[in-house]
């Protein structure tokens, strides 16, 4: 049973979308028309340039409404969430005590040259995020926050020396694909060091999706709005399953 959907403006299947963009041309009526034709070339119909104006010498900004003829079958979409395992801090602690029976060693860092620790801090710091305590507060976790600008080599060395169970790599800066490059480097280095199967490998950041994470060879990816307990639950459950398999 397929379930095809289109954007909803004010009527089912009208396919209405809004776009805004800048073109490197001075504003004129011809510039408005250029914007309209560009959007039509994208495959949209009923293109209406509702605002067009010069924002600087040689640059114009446009707001456009249009309709799409495309639809998508939502039943065929796969984007598994790593946030499904709902447990709060006490439940996670109890789970680890019962199923793993020792403290889980966790290390997290903002890798590469990225200095934005807001994401990793929200997950790891005692205080947590939105009233949900960070991993440092979990009794059954031994949590190391290595901070910002941690070289991938250093993180892997730390994981090896401390026999870390779960690694959390964070990236906020995504300019020119630096996040994907750094995440890939980390996964590859763990593989090369023969550590990949020994750690639960997690990436996080405002642009990270779980789908992207699995494509990069990670166990999970956590994006914007993630609560620390969601990461904690995933680590505990995944590690317990893995230990059960290998024992």
């Amino acid at each position, binding site marked *: 049973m397929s379930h095809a959907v289109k954007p909803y403006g004010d009527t089912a299947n009208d396919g209405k979308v809004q776009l805004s*963009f*800048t073109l490197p041309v001075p504003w004129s009526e011809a510039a408005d028309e250029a914007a309209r034709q560009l959007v039509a070339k994208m495959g949209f119909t009923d293109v209406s340039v509702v605002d067009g104006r010069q*924002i600087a010498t040689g*640059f114009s900004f446009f707001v456009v409404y249009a309709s799409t003829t495309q639809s998508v079958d939502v039943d065929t979409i796969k984007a598994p969430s790593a946030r499904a395992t709902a447990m709060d801090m006490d439940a996670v602690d109890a789970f680890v005590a019962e199923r793993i029976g020792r403290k889980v060693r966790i290390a997290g860092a903002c890798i590469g040259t990225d*200095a934005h620790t807001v994401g990793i801090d929200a997950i790891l710091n005692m205080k947590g995020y939105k009233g949900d305590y960070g991993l440092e507060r979990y009794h059954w976790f031994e949590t190391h926050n290595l901070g910002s600008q941690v070289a991938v080599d250093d993180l892997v060395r730390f994981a090896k020396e401390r026999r870390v169970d779960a690694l959390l790599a964070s990236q906020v800066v995504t300019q020119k694909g630096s996040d994907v490059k750094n995440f890939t480097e980390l996964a590859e280095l763990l593989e090369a060091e023969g550590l990949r199967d020994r750690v639960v490998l997690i990436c996080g950041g405002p642009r990270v999706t779980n789908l992207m994470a699995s494509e990069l060879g990670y166990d999970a990816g956590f994006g914007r*709005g993630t609560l620390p307990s969601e990461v904690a639950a995933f680590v505990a459950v995944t590690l317990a399953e893995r230990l059960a398999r290998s024992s």
Partner: protein
Amino acid sequence: MQLDVDRNSIDRCRALASAIVAPVEAFISAHTTVSVERAVLRLLGVDGIGSEEIPVPNLIVDALTPHERARGAALAFGKAVAETGLDPAPLSEAIALGRYRLSDFADTPDEAARRSLQPHVEAALAHIRSRRDERAALLERLPQLPPPLLYVIVASGNIYEDRTAAVAAVEAGAQIIAVIRSTGQSLLDFVPFGPTTEGFGGTYATQANFRIMRAALDEIGEKAGRYVMLTNYASGLCMPEIATMAALERLDMLLNDSMYGILFRDINMKRTFVDQHFSRMLNAYSGIVINTGEDNYLTTADAVEQAPAVLASQFINQAFARRAGMPDSQIGLGDAYEIDPDLEDGFLYQVAQAQLARQIFPECPLKYMPPTKHMTGDVFKGHLIDALFNLTSVMTKQTIHLCGMLTEAIHTPFLGDRALSLENARYIMNTARHFGDEIAFKPGGTIERRAQDVLTRCERLLDSVASMGLMHAIDAAVFADVKRSPDGGRGFDGVIERAPDYYNPFEEVLRPDAAAR
């Protein structure tokens, strides 16, 4: 629109801040750093790169013996000037090529070194004064629009793209352009050389990049009929060198905080305090306005809880800056609009905090930072939050206004984002220009009580820092819940105890108590 808060408490806070920085000053005057020494060399005219692209100032300072370093790089360099008869620029070229080593001239008398440097010291100071005069003349001829001065960032990684973005932003109303540095530059113990076209999350701060942007802003400033200010970052391991390059290239503002690098970049506190002091003496002389980084306390922790720490940091930054000879008119103390938008009456707390800073530091050009922490991919809500930030700023008469971007949480700003942001700020600030003059706070109301509460807790915080000592307080995680030890962190190995006959020809002039001032 005035808050009725306890004036005696403000006076006590100021006295406490002064007592907090005094013992640190004693440490500062007994030490130098590799970066201060490299800045001295740069001021003398040393520039360029040698093998493996190592900057000549680094080549020289790295090659000094510990004893030579403790006496100041100027002395060793001055000996080479005396013996070779070369000016600093050709001499640094010869050193880069490996033709000379400073150790060849170790036996030259100190007096000859000092004498041969004198004309170069005078020339450097005259040059900096001329850049300062030039700024004053330009500001006279091309006056800025009234504050809040709209400040935007450019951060493409490529200085030439940044130039395009900056010019477009000025046409859209920007009055200050900040070129964000490539992420990680604060941790480099050298300043890269030449124009650069690659960077992550920003563009490398180099002297050549400064010059390229300065020229572009001067040109568009003439067209727009108003002077456009240029900002960069004197933070991290190369603070004094960036301050030097900024003085030489007529930058107008520098981000320069007394504790930011320590807390948020894990740079050694002793290194930071010594570097900061020299940088600020130089900033004072060059007429550069510093922007302090109190916004960082709010982005990493809860903004409502951290308000007293912000105010305490403002007092401490002001105390340090005044001791480095900076007048209040050059001390741009920071604050930010970072309270959770879901909090009831959050706007009232924002107004209380901004107005409190305005009243306590009336002569300081306050730097107001936009919401970042609670910005999401919802650009529509983001644009609304920015609008309230703009309203708070114009109401409470902030001076330097960093425009918030609706795409703050998504990417470094697009050209169109900047235009929308500037339009938002211009609309709000125009429509509410004199709103703050027309209203009064309800005596004993929520805003006034909040302001008094922040002040009271700030005084308590400063009191405990004063009794612990600043270095110990940082070690005990009093600020931003971050713990840093006095001998830990990056760059500690670059802190040098001064020999009794330490020589720094610039400091002698720049010191606030120097007769020349």
